[in-house]
């Protein structure tokens, strides 16, 4: 029987007590147990045990950037079945800052979220949002978006902030380059990220309560990706993130890089594809072997009046919905659809300044849609019917098969699913540059 040390964090509000379990003879506080594997593709479903929740994978993680999920309370999010969500280190590190967060029982206590949290390192926003950003071996110097002062983010500082936030899973600080960058800068960034990983691992002051994922980099270059993969896979870590994608690169390259990574990463540890994405991307990448995703899509599109449905998206503010009295989706079991709120009424609410009901309902629907999509995929894996699920998903999204995105057809074919013939095919090894054979069974 494993000895377990129980650390109880008392929070200012006596109604919430956060428990952190430290297992003395595990290297990190994450257990990943694969329940079922697809017989055709690389998809698998697993249970991932974290200090604050047990999460079923593949999982979609909604993004609560600044410690709140846009018009949804944590109770409402929990009722939708969400058990892990994201917080953003860049913003939370600037304000309120790690000291305030750790004195509040971490972000869990601060925002009253009892389930699991994941934080990114802050690197991506730092590069994309800051006016001035200088990267050197020590770290990154950038200007604060809040008061314009010059700040320095090093691997050690990123981990210090993330330790203060207290998320179950942290990300290493990596040297971020845009996916469109080419040339020696990509190699430099990839190699530096490995060195920064080791500094992050050494800086983690709470290794038995918070685990750290390295991030595979290397841009769109398969050799660099392989170098990164081999280096990261040799570290003793709980799981892996795949970064540097979801930046607008060609989808034909995107899926090949994802597949390259999932094929070379250890099978018994979770794979997290950062910043992905659309429902279609999720289905394809699950087939390629990805376990975890995050994206602002469901929450951001809700604010713009866009509802996610199996057939695609509904832009509710458009004229065609002004008198449409149907629910968003009568197959959906979210509070918005079961509550009978019509598309037209939601559109009315969304246009009223100060009224948050429309945004709350639509956010709940979109998050429920994404969570339900993952739930259906997991169930299909348990039932041994994942390929059928994939084909059914595509038929709903694209009534005409000639509209199937070519990249998705190729990606699925490479893992044995033929969308067009309706049968499973023999898997192939497919190179990033597109060369390789695909045989039909």
């Amino acid at each position, binding site marked *: 029987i494993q000895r377990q040390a129980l650390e109880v964090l008392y929070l*200012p*509000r006596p*109604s*919430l007590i956060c428990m952190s379990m430290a297992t003395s003879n595990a290297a990190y506080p994450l257990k990943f147990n694969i329940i079922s594997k697809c017989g055709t593709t690389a998809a698998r479903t697993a249970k991932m045990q974290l200090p604050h929740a047990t999460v079923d994978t593949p999982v979609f993680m909604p993004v609560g*950037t*600044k*410690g*709140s*999920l*846009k*018009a*949804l*309370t944590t109770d*409402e999010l929990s009722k939708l079945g969400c058990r892990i969500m994201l917080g953003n280190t860049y*913003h939370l590190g600037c*304000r*309120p*800052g790690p000291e*305030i967060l750790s*004195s*509040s029982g971490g972000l869990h206590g*601060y*925002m*009253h979220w009892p389930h699991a949290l994941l934080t990114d390192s802050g690197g*991506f*926003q730092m590069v*994309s*949002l800051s006016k001035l950003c200088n990267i050197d071996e020590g770290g990154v110097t950038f200007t604060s978006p809040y008061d314009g002062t010059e700040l320095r983010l090093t691997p050690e500082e990123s981990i210090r902030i993330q330790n203060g936030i207290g998320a179950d899973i942290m990300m290493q600080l990596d040297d971020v380059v845009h996916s469109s960058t080419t040339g020696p800068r990509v190699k430099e960034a990839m190699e530096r990220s490995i060195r920064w990983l080791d500094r992050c691992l050494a800086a983690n002051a709470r290794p038995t309560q918070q685990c750290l994922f390295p991030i595979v980099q290397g841009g769109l270059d398969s050799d660099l990706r392989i170098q990164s993969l081999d280096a990261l896979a040799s570290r003793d870590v709980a799981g892996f993130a795949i970064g540097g994608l979801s930046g607008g690169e060609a989808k034909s390259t995107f899926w090949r890089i994802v597949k390259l990574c999932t094929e070379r990463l250890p099978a018994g540890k979770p794979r997290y594809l950062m910043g992905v994405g659309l429902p279609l991307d999720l289905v394809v990448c699950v087939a390629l072997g990805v376990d975890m995703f995050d994206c*602002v899509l469901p929450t*951001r599109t809700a*604010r*713009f009046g866009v509802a996610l449905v199996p057939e695609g998206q509904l832009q509710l503010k458009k004229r065609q919905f*002004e*008198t449409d*009295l149907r629910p968003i989706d009568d197959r959906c079991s979210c509070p918005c659809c079961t*509550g*009978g*709120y*019509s598309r*037209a*009424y939601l559109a*009315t*609410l969304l*246009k*009223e*300044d*100060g*009224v*948050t*009901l*429309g*945004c*709350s*309902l639509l956010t709940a629907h979109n998050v429920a849609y994404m969570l339900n999509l993952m739930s259906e995929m997991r169930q299909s894996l348990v039932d041994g019917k994942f390929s059928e699920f994939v084909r059914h998903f595509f038929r709903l999204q694209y009534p005409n098969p000639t509209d199937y995105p070519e990249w998705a057809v190729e990606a699925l074919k490479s893992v044995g699913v033929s969308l067009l013939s309706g049968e499973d095919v023999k898997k192939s090894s497919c190179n990033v540059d597109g060369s390789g054979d695909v045989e039909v069974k």
Partner: protein
Amino acid sequence: MRFTVSASSGRARLGHLALSGGPDHPVAMATPGYLIYNRCGSDPHLPQSPAGILLTPLNHWLDKLALLRQAGNLRQLCRLRPDRQLLLSLTDHLDYYPTPGVTAQHVGLPTRSGKAPLTVELQAELTLLTSPELVQPLADCEIRDGDGRKRARKSVDRSLAFYDRFVTALEQQGGLGGGGPALMASWVGGYSAEERLRCLRELESRGADGLVVEGFRYYNQPVEDFRLAQCESVLTEALQQQQRSQPPRPLYFPGLVHPADIIRAAELGFDLFDGSLPALLTRRGLAWLTSVTGGSWWLHVGDVELLTATDRPLDPGCCCRCCRQFSLSYLAHLSLSNEILASILLMEHNSARLAAFFNELRSAIGSAESLGGLATKYAAAVVPPTAAVAPLANEQARLKDDEA
């Protein structure tokens, strides 16, 4: 609708307003009480909706007629629970001023798309579509600074004519009788005490079920600039000359937001208020505290100094969800970050605070001494002018503030 008075202290009175709401869901409220301020069936900033009487201004719906007619039933469209009944009024007093534009045939109501005409016939049609328990018939509520008795007389004459025609129109459409809405007639007459008294007498002789005070706030006067003192003498003179009606009729005074004015209006005998104060405070990032703190009833939560308040809630004296679950630091953080949740939590708090205030008011109406004490306690409870406090960001600003 049934309105009964159980106790009084001077002109102030405790009452009980009961609506049918169908046999299984009677809706009742104690008075002095407040209507639930809402827009298009939803309480601003609040995803969850309490039971009660919803103030439903028609000016919100005049640019959505196609939708209303398509739906055929406002209650069904807005998914209103049976414990939420409607008072169909004319204009939202928080965000829209009674704008100029009244003729013998119609009243121009302000909408987001501009002014839209409301006729008696249209209002009768909308009354049937919305199924309210209470309705405020069309009236000439227009007033400008400097209007004299002649204009006041015209507003009374027009309003009485609208009232009579509306009653006829409803009867013809089968909307009156046992199952029809109670009529809350607009008490107009500008600043002329004689016209105010005439209007009062005419409406009582017509058997109006209740009265709505209109026509005191000038068309360009922001709601927080309107004080009871502006019209108290005219009101008092008219009320004193008129016998209290039997059976009693509820008196509704919309557009009074300052707690000090609400107490004074209750002392004058008013029973219903518009409940818009929480929305007004919340959109401006203000919390109404249970006791004066730092010399003020109000706290602006979007203050970076409050980020260190990790060990206490917004208001230790409050039991709302915001104060039970979250620290003041978190609320300040959300507010500074332009998060929607900030306004949701703040609105929950301010709504709970308003409910507590009205409980206090009703408890105090039992003795003149208690009511006087309450008036002293809240004498400084005046919402600060708009310019003094930066508002919470609106939706457009939030969308711009969003990031990858």
